[in-house]
């Protein structure tokens, strides 16, 4: 990776949500859990409840129906909650930009909340881990 990433001193819980995604990013995120990439060695845990999440991994082009649910989820999360846009769709709607079925992009759906953008279609698991760990290491209590 070129950068040495130390394990985070806190074990941040991360919640993953998809809002109009083709799933490639979602599958690569799950891949990060698998032994080959093993995001857990950095202390990052994927959880099933947004209330305890320190970060929200968001994928998808912000389809109108899903985008509102993303807003609701973000409201439920304890703050500070870092939002990490994973994939070209979450970063800027990718090839779906301008479609009638999508509303504004993620950083307008959650203004000021996006802490990191991990572009790629889909980004490789190594890129996702790099982005997530870098973003999470800015949370207080974590070593750099």
């Amino acid at each position, binding site marked *: 990776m070129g950068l040495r990433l130390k394990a985070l001193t806190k074990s941040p819980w991360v919640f993953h949500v998809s809002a109009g995604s083709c799933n490639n990013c979602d599958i690569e995120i799950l891949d990060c859990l698998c032994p080959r990439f093993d995001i857990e060695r950095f202390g990052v845990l994927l959880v099933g409840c947004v209330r305890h999440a320190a970060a929200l991994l968001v994928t998808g082009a912000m*389809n*109108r*129906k899903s985008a509102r649910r993303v*807003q609701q989820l973000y409201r439920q999360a304890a703050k500070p909650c870092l939002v990490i846009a994973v994939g070209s769709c979450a970063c800027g709607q990718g090839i779906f930009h301008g479609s*009638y*079925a999508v*509303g*504004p992009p993620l950083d307008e759906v959650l203004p000021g909340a996006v802490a990191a953008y991990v572009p790629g279609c889909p980004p490789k698991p190594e890129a996702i881990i790099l982005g997530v760990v870098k973003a999470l290491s800015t949370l207080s209590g974590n070593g750099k």
Partner: protein
Amino acid sequence: MSQKLVDRIRKGIGDKARRIDVRSPRRVYVDIAPNDLVDVVKYLFEDLRARYVIASGVQVEDGFEVLHHFCFDADHVVVSVRVKAAPEKPEVPSVAPIIKGAEFIEREMHDLLGIEFPGHPNLTRLILAEDWPEGVYPLRRGKPWEGKVSQQL
């Protein structure tokens, strides 16, 4: 292989077929009047046991077309049954009472093209967002949503 099938279909639907076009050995297009759609679909689906594939709705110069696609897997043929609907208040009889698998696609064509399907058990919104305005059909020509749909959520 497809000639035998075409002959069977021709016999089975009689003069209901305005046109049977064997475009290629594996692609047949049958044009019929909307009033004959239910009978023809019943024949293909129930009598000949064709597999229902999906329907394609298309806006054309003089109205709309709905093509119901059927697969005769053992005969290696896709038969598409085409009906036309008028440009103003387009209507095509629903085949959902005969084919459960057609319920979704008729709702989708209703959502995106504004075609009515009298006889459908539940012709409600399927894929557009709850706040998408009524009467705006995105798959129609041009960009019918411009100026009618807010860019904000």
